[in-house]
């Protein structure tokens, strides 16, 4: 309504000026009949008003929609009404909508092809890695050990790429089921054993044997992998322990990775979950990509796990995953007690 008035005030002003001008010309010519002037004015204003009302009623959808913020692209397909201007607008916006959709589809396809390509490429790269892995398996000399470490780094890098690519299709690629967190943690630790040993850091595992949480073991492993890699990297040379513990908090199970390393400066903490953010520590440690914690946050968000972080420079960092526990069945409770 507001927009309509703003749009039409020029017409109204023009109309009134013209009306007064006409009456003025007649008056100057010597023709003056007061009641007729009032009658003419009333009649003209009435018809002009009627015109504006009809105009508003037939075109109100245009004005209403123009003054509302756009929420979806589909708004372009809604019709404006039957007036000529409305029909023209309908046609135009439908055309626009089709064009956008087409372009969107093209990009979506491109994106999908790209993701597929990345996934395929990562899988292809695993073959040469397997060959090197097998070739080195029976070698125990320091050089092979060093190559093995590098292979581990490549594997970790490829894994990250794969998971970033998968994130786009997360909905089709996860399965929530009871996950035994102790076993899962042990597996992730074993995968990273060379990283731990080389940095002379040792894990301390404080997780009850049969605790289970609702999660996807693949994605949760990846998250834990990122957290442990960080913990070890920022502990190296300062502390030789990383603690992984699980405890209950209300209905949740908290899985906590605590290191006693260099910690994160307070001004960086808020931003560590942003993509490509490396902060002060990233500048000191060349291997930071700034993607690790971003992925952790993204994945946890999709799995409906909470992520919390505390850190103090020089004291260490604690990252907590807030998971929901699997409620043990009565039988299992009995087994636990016995």
């Amino acid at each position, binding site marked *: 309504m507001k927009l309509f008035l703003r749009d039409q005030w020029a017409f109204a002003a023009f109309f009134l000026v013209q009306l007064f001008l006409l009456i003025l010309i007649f008056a100057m010519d010597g023709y003056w009949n007061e009641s007729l002037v009032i009658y003419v004015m009333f009649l003209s204003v009435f018809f002009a008003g009627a015109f504006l009302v009809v105009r508003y009623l037939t075109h109100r959808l245009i004005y209403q929609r123009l003054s509302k913020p756009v929420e979806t692209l589909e708004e372009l397909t809604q019709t404006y009404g039957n007036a000529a201007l409305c029909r023209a607008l309908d046609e135009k916006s439908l055309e626009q909508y089709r064009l956008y959709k087409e372009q969107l589809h093209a990009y979506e396809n491109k994106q999908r092809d790209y993701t597929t390509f990345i996934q395929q490429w990562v899988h292809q790269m695993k*073959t040469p890695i397997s060959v090197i*892995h*097998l070739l080195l398996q029976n070698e*125990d000399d320091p050089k092979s*050990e060093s190559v093995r470490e590098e292979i581990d780094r490549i594997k970790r890098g490829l894994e990250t790429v794969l998971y970033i690519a998968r994130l786009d299709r997360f909905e089709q690629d996860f399965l929530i089921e009871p996950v035994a967190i102790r076993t899962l943690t*042990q597996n992730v630790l*074993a995968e990273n054993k060379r990283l731990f040993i080389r940095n002379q850091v040792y894990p301390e595992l404080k997780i009850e044997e049969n605790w289970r949480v609702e999660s996807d073991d693949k994605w949760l492993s990846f998250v834990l992998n990122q957290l442990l890699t960080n913990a070890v990297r920022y502990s190296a040379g300062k502390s030789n322990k990383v603690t992984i513990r699980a405890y209950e908090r209300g209905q949740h199970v908290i899985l906590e990775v605590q290191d006693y390393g260099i910690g994160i400066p307070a001004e960086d903490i808020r931003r560590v979950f942003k993509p490509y953010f490396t902060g002060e520590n990233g500048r000191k440690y060349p291997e930071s990509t700034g993607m690790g914690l971003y992925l952790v946050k993204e994945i946890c968000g999709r799995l409906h796990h909470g992520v919390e972080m505390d850190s103090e420079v020089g004291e260490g960092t604690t990252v907590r995953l807030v998971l929901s526990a699997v409620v043990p069945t009565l039988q299992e409770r009995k087994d636990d007690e016995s």
Partner: protein
Amino acid sequence: MSTIMIVEDDPKINQLLQEQLEKYGFQTVNVEHFDRVMDVFIDRRPDLVLLDVNLPKFDGFYWCRQMRQESNCPILFISARESKMDQVMALENGADDYITKPFDYDVVLAKIRSQLRRAYGQYAPQEGERTVEVAGLKLFLERMELSMNDTKIELSKKEALLLEALMNQYPRVVSRERLLEKLWDEQFVDENTLNVYITRVRGKLKDIGLEGAVETVRGSGYRLRATWEDGQ
């Protein structure tokens, strides 16, 4: 002797697997033309098949279904794809197990053995047991036994792993890092625990009359020395 068919299009992995399996007394069959997988399968009647998923022409799932129409022999998939979907697909197409690349020889051997045992019973011929020998000292890796001349002694799993590393590398030094890595399976091992295991291994060796055989090399690691030979 069990026959194992390897269907893998990467020639190097193929060859490495073949060598490793032959070392442990398996007979291996290779596929050269990937449109004639079934011909080889029917012709050679393998006891077990190692099957890659990504193959030229048809994928592993297709061949798995074809093989299932002919035989119930164990089929193990080896693939770089580690997603749940792929594993489920493999099992639904009739596979018995799934190994992801990159893999360890130990894992492949263990899975092959367990599948053979399951399919052909306990009486299946024991495939050549892995042994390591250094100057008369013999380590049996499956039984976890150590023998010297006529004396035998049982070892724990970690002791056996430790000795295996030392004997494989004989007479060179094995670094502490490497030993830690070898011992770390589901339970991690730290420096102190490694010291404990070294002491235990020394004790076991002493029990069969070998003293001073595990030598500490300061700053790098440990080395096996055939002290018993020097004495003779």
